[in-house]
């Protein structure tokens, strides 16, 4: 209790809240006690710092508040809306590192929400399931409208190629093998974009429509092989209620997006034993994104979303990835491919932030074209 009173007095002394008499008394105490004098000096420094901190914090707050108010009032035209021809090239230069056509997803989300565009998989109950790949018709339309601009932008998509579909993917072998959804690869060619926005050429190695998994290989001189992949592919079934998270590229600006949820059923749509039901806010473009458990082990691949229940999604089980890799052996064309699936999870003990920072280096946005 004494210490509290002492500190309180010091604080009042420093803030000039003591009466003249008290102040004189306290000055005497300070002179007599080196310890108390030291406490005063230290606390003054601390209060000064706290004051500086508080003032700056308030300025940051005001600045953020003013910015969002002005933005909401339409003070600055958002990028898509600023369509004056003179500005178009400037705006497009932003996408140099990304992919030209990424911008043409622009109008997609509005249409998506009104469920005009729906991609139906023949092997599934089409009226209830909505695949999460980015809508194609819209891309095509936008592409035609903006075709003359696309040619101005350097991209690894071949000239005159039409972007057909897109989604997310992730590395399963440092040599550049990427797993994504089969439905993400509707075209016959593909490129991938890493989380830094760098485009890389890729070839489609294998596609399994039934399990909705596909294998790509990066074949690009700019690809830098990482030393090791920080997540193991889980070989067992995961538990109900397990906390999960994902990283994918659902947005048209190609920024990586983190999502969190839980495993809500050990089987998928209508009891499908090759997938899980998960509770996560899955957006289009999450198709092919990995699902990790809280240890950082890879347990599945996001695939489809049930149309009516928001937040409900399905994920192909990680064991199916192992099946895909094994299936390569049975095919004359692919039997020499030697994929070493990662066996160790190295990101488990880190904080989620550090974990994501590491994981994002192994995540890719996938684009398919014809």
């Amino acid at each position, binding site marked *: 209790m004494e210490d509290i009173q002492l500190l309180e007095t010091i604080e009042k002394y420093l803030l000039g809240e003591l009466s003249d008499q008290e102040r004189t008394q306290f000055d005497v105490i300070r002179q007599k006690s080196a310890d108390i004098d030291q406490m005063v000096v*230290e606390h003054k420094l601390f209060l000064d710092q*706290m004051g500086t*901190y508080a003032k700056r914090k308030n300025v940051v707050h*005001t600045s953020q508040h*003013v910015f969002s108010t002005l933005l909401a009032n339409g003070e600055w035209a958002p*990028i898509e809306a600023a369509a004056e021809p003179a500005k178009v090239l400037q705006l497009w230069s*932003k996408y140099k590192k990304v992919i030209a056509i990424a911008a043409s997803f622009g109008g997609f989300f509005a249409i998506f929400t009104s469920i005009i565009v729906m991609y139906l998989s023949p092997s599934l109950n089409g009226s209830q399931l909505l695949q999460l790949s980015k809508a194609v018709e819209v891309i095509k339309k936008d592409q035609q409208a903006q075709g003359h601009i696309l040619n101005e932008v350097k991209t690894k998509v071949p000239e005159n190629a039409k972007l057909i579909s897109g989604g997310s993917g992730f590395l399963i072998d440092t040599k550049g093998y990427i797993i994504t959804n089969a439905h993400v690869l509707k075209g016959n060619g593909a490129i991938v974009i890493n989380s830094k926005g760098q485009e890389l050429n890729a070839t489609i190695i294998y596609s399994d429509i039934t399990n909705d998994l596909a294998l790509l290989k990066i074949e690009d001189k700019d690809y830098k092989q990482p030393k090791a992949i920080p997540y193991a592919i889980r070989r067992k079934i995961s538990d109900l209620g397990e906390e999960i998270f994902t990283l994918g590229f659902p947005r048209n600006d190609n920024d990586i997006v983190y999502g969190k949820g839980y495993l809500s059923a050990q089987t998928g749509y209508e009891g499908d034993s090759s997938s899980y039901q998960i509770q996560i806010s899955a957006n289009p473009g999450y198709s092919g994104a990995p699902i990790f458990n809280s240890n950082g082990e890879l347990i599945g691949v996001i695939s489809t979303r049930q149309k009516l229940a928001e937040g409900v999604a399905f994920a192909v089980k990680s064991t199916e990835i192992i099946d895909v890799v094994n299936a390569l052996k049975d095919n004359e064309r692919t039997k020499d491919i030697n994929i070493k699936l990662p066996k160790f999870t190295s990101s488990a003990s880190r904080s989620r932030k550090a974990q994501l920072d590491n994981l994002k280096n192994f995540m890719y946005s996938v684009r398919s074209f014809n």
Partner: protein
Amino acid sequence: MKAELNEQALLKGLAQNDSKAVETLYKSHFTMIQHFVENNNGSFDDARDIFQEAMIALYEKVQLDSFVLTCQIKTYLFSICKHLWLKRLQQMGKYSSPLSAHEESISVEMDMGQIEKKDAAFAIMDRALNSLGEPCKSLLEGYYLNKKGMQELASQFGYTNADNAKNQKYKCLMRLKKLFFAQYNIGD
């Protein structure tokens, strides 16, 4: 002369956290920065972040004892943004060619050195506060940042009386000071 006076008034407003002044700065200069960042491999969000940082840098600059602004606010903000964006691009390994810019700029290296020290002190306090956990963080913020009285804080946090809240605040403060001084070096 009138324009110069206005600029001084704006800086004074910024120093006093006057939202009108902040708004004027955004309205007059953000578009310029948006164009600059977007023309140099950045996005709208990047421009927002860079401008925000530059505003804080300007605020810190105004706080400095030696403060004299030898150019227009516009030029100064642009110069800081250019400096910050160049640094960001280099960190991302994206910088290859000289930035394209149409605005004139001045060297802000000296200022940035001083401002970075302020940034560091701010970051230390921020980290210390954030690692306290609740309710300590909010309690101390309520007292030192929002200048609320002990009685008010007691009822806000559900303490039965102001003395208990004061007791708790004291414990939290001790922890915060320990965390803060563990990283803060006097004189540097």
